[in-house]
């Protein structure tokens, strides 16, 4: 469901910087359905990838075979990302807070972590430079705190300071796609507010998975369930072993 909703956020022909996991699944779903000309760029340097199998890692050989271009990582980050050529960045996060700040570094204190997470990868530069960033994460009090334990990637406001004041070129996280609904960054406050609900989900269920007093858009959208095509492509073509869809 999250993958299908995320895929719908991508328009045909857009240039997407793809992260691994659900973002990767969503991008390939979009390419297989409504956005055949989606331009997939992986931080590994594969440009215009047309993977014959769902890549398990963002460095999978299937991303290279038959791609349009393979460049070094210095070019991927400098000529494409920092140079403003990426329209959509796609990130996950262990923690997402009220202003869309993301944490993939540590749970607890950095110096003495409760849980040590993998770390930054390319997330900070994607959140800073992509023209807009989409976030996918499953709702839970633990995953959506008022404030993340560590800011790995900047959201709409950092300690009250806006992206503009910080000099961040991209629009940052504009939507957070969860397993119950979609949050959007409020244009004024930069706060993540509830914008749309999945079928049969109540506002209270979303609030229950969020660690702050969640505001709602005046008019809440209703999200269409995955179409037959979307489900078929996901289950039969992209992820037959249920590598991601189990999760």
């Amino acid at each position, binding site marked *: 469901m999250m993958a299908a909703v995320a895929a719908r956020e991508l328009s045909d022909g857009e240039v997407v910087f793809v992260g691994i996991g659900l973002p990767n699944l969503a991008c390939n779903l979009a390419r297989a359905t409504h956005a055949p000309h989606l331009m997939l760029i992986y931080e590994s340097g594969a440009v215009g990838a047309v993977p014959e199998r769902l890549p398990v890692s963002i*460095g999978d050989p299937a991303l290279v075979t038959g791609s349009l271009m393979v*460049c*070094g990582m210095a070019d991927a980050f400098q000529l494409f990302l920092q140079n403003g050529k990426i329209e959509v960045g796609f990130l996950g996060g262990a923690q997402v807070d009220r202003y869309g700040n993301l944490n993939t570094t540590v749970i607890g204190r950095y110096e003495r972590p409760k849980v040590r997470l993998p*770390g*930054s990868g390319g997330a900070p530069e994607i959140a*800073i430079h992509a023209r807009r960033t989409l976030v996918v994460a499953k709702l839970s009090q633990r995953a959506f705190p008022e404030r993340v334990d560590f*800011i790995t990637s900047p959201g709409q406001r950092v300690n009250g300071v806006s992206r503009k004041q910080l000099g961040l070129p991209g629009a940052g996280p504009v939507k957070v796609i969860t397993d119950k609904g979609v949050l959007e960054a409020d244009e004024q406050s930069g706060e993540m507010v509830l914008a749309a609900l999945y079928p049969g989900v109540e506002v209270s269920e979303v609030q229950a998975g969020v660690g702050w007093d969640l505001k709602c858009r005046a008019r809440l959208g209703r999200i269409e369930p995955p179409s037959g095509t979307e489900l078929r492509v996901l289950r039969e073509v992209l992820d037959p072993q249920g590598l991601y869809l189990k999760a």
Partner: protein
Amino acid sequence: MSMKGAVARYVHDGDTVVIEGFTHLICFAAGHEIIRQGRRELTLCRLTPDLIYDQMIAAGCARRLVFSWAGNPGVGSLHAFRRAVEGQGNPALEIEEYSHFGMVARFSAGAAGLPFWPLRDYAGTDLPRVNPRIRTVTCPYTGEALATVPALNPDVTIVHAQRADAAGNTHMWGLVGVQKEAAFASRHVIVVVEELVDESVIRSDPNRTIIPAMIVDAVVVEPWGAHPSYAQGYYDRDNDFYVAWEGVSREADTLRRYLDEFVYGVSDRAAYMARQPGLGPRLKAKQRYSSGVNYGF
């Protein structure tokens, strides 16, 4: 030169060591030989420590880790790394952390003979707070502040590639990551290849050369040396191994048993492959040849 000889000669206790390769062409063969020779107090640098550094950390080779993403790609955690960082390791592992772009920039500066590299990054993140080596510089034209990272110049960089000639002129294709920069930034360079080719093969396609012999100290021929990572055109990534590592590495003693059998228990990569006869047939690459281009005049 043999892997044994190359590691003995160019990797010393306390060195800053780089085994690069982004998912592709990670030289596990070199890492295993460093473990066998019992190197200690190493500063290990890589964007993605991956299973190879997880194994080297478990084996006690590392004093310090410089990195940007320490996970098991597409699977989960690096457990030896986590044990060390979460304080169950003994002694605790020192860490120095950047983003991918920051690590790439550190190698770029080192390779260019510059003391630093500027990048537009880190504003609004907590990384500079925990890593004082991430600083800023003021643009002499716009007056804006840009982030900087310091040059990284390793003692030795080990690069795995598809083919090279005897002198070390190296062809690499598919994902090339940051290997060129890491090699040019390094005091010593060991090139490990799937295939040794005649100089004429290199000279037939000079635009394919990523690393020139003049910066290479040793050439080691080690087929399958990148398993369980992969070599485009030679063998596929062993995803089953990466998935299985979760179970192997979750407990220190199962990890230790793995090292005993597949690292300490074998003398070299040939023996490693001989112990797993199924690997070759399962992972061997199909043929998808590029068309040649004309270099004539």
